């Protein structure tokens, strides 16, 4: 181990390697419920070349490597399940280029959502990127490679759909560019080349280390507004969401159902966020959205909540700070959620499942969904709060998460950024030939099996 430590020090410098108990302890877990797994080393590279050298070393000695962004995935994907090296990428946080005319940004893998947001606001105020609901410290690369979504995903799809290209270091040390950047100085798209970026999306860091990526940027509207539509019957939701999405006016369409505050209990809320460059355009969009659901309003079975500007503000904030506060519901600093990617058709069934599990297992919950694309699918989330100082409460949340994962898979959904146990649930239902293909690909890319082992595996 001392030789490995020394070799790592030679690659990244003394200050950026630790095998000390403090780092090993803190990097052994994330804020979710998954049990701690200690790494042997925490390493912070500053360049693609340093990443390459770390992977060559790890390959030579068959040491597991776990890439880490901000560590906010909550489902324990960046724990070192089999020890080894946690590769904390946050020193590589440079914003390399923004191409205003082709609307893309090229960043290093440790660049955070907040940094890019601030950079665009200052230097390119006409542009924005899609920011997830995660705190601003979350990295762009981390969210893209788990197929995340964000505040304009209704209009533009998953964050992985917004990816133009990648620079990756393969487990065997080769540095590879994927997308237009493979043959051009411009990072404008993944087409028309064979789309190999998929080899690094949704794999939970088991195929290589992303070091740079380019993402699409979008017009940043001068005026933004939100409407909150409310109904009491979950069976109406797919049609309501369908009608609203049919207008193609919204950038974000989300649903939320929560027992707190009391006035919200039992209601199903749909937030529809839209923007415009003039007030007239904004009103025009608002009218189109209202017209899309006027039948429900006329029948007095659903309607928009009248909201003063101050009340709208939390719903317009990007990212929304109030979402993190769910962690304090149990005065215990914890929540984790199952985010299930599924058809919008299943909304009512998914909602009933959440209520049933929360009631049966007595967990504090919040339910909701983000509509990805124009009703192309949704990420339905089941968030459970817990008190991390109370092991029984943590266990209760864990049981709820497990039950949700299992039921969601059986319902026809697929848990997103699934915990290692939930990955097994998915594999259980997966076409065996797909799983076999995944294993064949990994055997080629990672012959020594060093990349985040313990993920996408069966016992």
């Amino acid at each position, binding site marked *: 181990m001392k030789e490995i430590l020394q070799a790592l020090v030679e690659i990244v410098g003394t200050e950026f390697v630790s095998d000390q108990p403090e780092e090993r302890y803190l*990097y052994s877990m994330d*804020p979710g419920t998954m049990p701690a797994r200690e790494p042997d080393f925490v390493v912070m590279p500053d360049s693609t070349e340093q990443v390459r050298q770390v992977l060559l070393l790890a390959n030579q000695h068959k040491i597991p490597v776990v890439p880490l962004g901000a560590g*906010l995935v909550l489902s324990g994907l960046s724990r070192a399940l089999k020890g080894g090296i946690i590769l904390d990428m946050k020193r590589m946080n440079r914003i390399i280029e923004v191409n205003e005319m082709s609307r893309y940004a090229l960043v290093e893998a440790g660049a955070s959502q907040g940094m890019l947001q601030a950079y665009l606001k200052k230097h390119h105020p006409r542009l924005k990127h899609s920011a997830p609901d995660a*705190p*601003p*410290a979350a990295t762009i690369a981390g969210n893209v490679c788990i197929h995340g979504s964000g505040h304009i995903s209704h209009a533009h799809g998953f964050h992985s759909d917004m990816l133009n290209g990648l620079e990756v270091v393969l487990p065997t040390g080769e540095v590879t560019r994927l997308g237009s950047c493979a043959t051009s100085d411009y990072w404008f798209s993944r087409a028309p080349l064979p789309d190999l970026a998929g080899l690094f999306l949704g794999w939970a860091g088991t195929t290589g280390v992303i070091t740079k990526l380019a993402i699409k940027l979008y017009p940043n509207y001068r005026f933004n507004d939100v409407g909150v539509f409310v109904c009491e019957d979950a069976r109406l939701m797919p049609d309501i969401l369908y009608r609203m999405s049919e207008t193609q006016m919204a950038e974000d369409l989300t649903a939320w159902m929560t027992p707190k505050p009391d006035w919200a209990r039992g209601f199903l809320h749909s937030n529809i966020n839209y923007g415009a460059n003039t007030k007239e355009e904004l009103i025009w969009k608002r009218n189109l959205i209202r017209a899309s659901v006027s039948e429900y309003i006329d029948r007095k079975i659903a309607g928009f909540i009248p909201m003063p500007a101050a009340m709208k503000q939390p719903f317009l904030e990007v990212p929304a700070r109030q979402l*993190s506060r769910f*962690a*304090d519901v149990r005065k215990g*600093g914890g929540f984790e959620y199952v985010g299930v990617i599924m058809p919008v058709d299943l909304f009512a069934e998914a909602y009933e499942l959440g209520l049933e599990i929360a009631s049966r297992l007595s967990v504090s919950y919040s339910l909701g969904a983000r509509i990805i694309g124009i009703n192309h699918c949704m990420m339905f989330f089941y968030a459970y709060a817990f008190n991390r100082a109370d092991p029984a409460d943590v266990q209760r949340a864990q049981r709820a998460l497990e039950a949700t994962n299992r039921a969601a898979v059986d319902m026809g959904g697929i848990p997103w950024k699934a915990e290692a146990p939930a990955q097994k649930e998915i594999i259980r239902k997966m076409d065996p030939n797909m799983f076999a293909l995944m294993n064949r690909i990994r055997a080629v890319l990672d012959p020594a099996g060093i990349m985040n082992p313990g993920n996408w595996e069966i016992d």
Partner: protein
Amino acid sequence: MQYEEILHRCFRCGYCKLPENYVDFNCPPYLSFRFETYSPGGRMWLIRALLDNKLAPTGRLQEILFSCVACANCVTHCTFPKFKDQLLLAFTAAKEQLVNGGKVPPAVRDCLTRIYQHGNPYGHARKKRDAWTDGLKVEPYSDQEYLFFVGDVGSYDTRGQEIARSVAGLLQKLGVSFGILGADEISDGNEAGAMGEAELFKYLAEENIKTFESRGVEKIITLSPHGYNAFKNDYPGFGGNYSVLHYSQVLAPLVKKAAFAPDQPPLRVTYHDSCYLGRHNMEYGAPRTVLTALPGVELVEMQRCFQNALCCGGGGGNVFTDIIGSGRQTSAGVRVGEAAASGAGVLAVACPQCAVMFADAVKVQNLEGRLAVKEISEIVNERLIKQEVN
């Protein structure tokens, strides 16, 4: 440990590491060391682990806890309203636990020992406390309106002494009635308190209060925002209730009435908010009022200002212990770079500790000749008509 009930409530969402606009990391130890262990959230979880005996109070853990500069960025930006105000108190309580157990970094131990033995963190003789007055006629405090409390950095540090002379000289020119304690002054204790040495802080406060009472002090002007913080917020808890002003608050109304030399060359200045004047005490206006009153001075703001200012890295005793200085990217270095990027030729400060930290950083960052670090009274003095009084 006091406040231990909030430790596990931290979700580690990371808002505490950032300013309001998210432009870059705003927590000095995290900026320097970059391991999550040095972030406020990491510190919360490590302290919990220490109390649960999952971690021992190793030298590294001590370094992590004492690298906190008490800048309160985390308090300002934490997203949990029910316990955010207690974050810094919890960090200080953890340091206190280590101090009481004798588990502190050598630099902290030595600093606290010097304060205890000599009444200042430099270990210099008390009788040299008024060495800064060299060339000025400053009266001992007797029946003047204000006590001018100079503090440790102003009394002993070479750069601090220059600032003390400049401020005292300007106060005289503006007709402020004040005197000093000289050798009777001892450390205000703010840094001892921030380093978790609660007993030493109490002792210093009580000694100072005894001196103030014996001299009939009612009004205090402090040179340092750190002393201002201690006198204003902590001394009442020890029975010391005074009317306390930072010198910038005294200057603000008076500078407007001062006469300045005509045809002043234009000067672009950016102002750095000291943590103990700004985030801790919400005083953002007075130093800016002083600067904007000066003919020819254009005040520009840095990307991080007011409650989002990046700390110089000198708080929490770090100006004396330099624990944070061993990191590769110091906040002082980043801050002077930010000041230069604002287009200003002068980085103005209203805190001697900030001045000391930035003076070094300007050299390290090769910004000498491009960016000058000046304390605000120095800029005023440069522009006053000589011998101006009232």
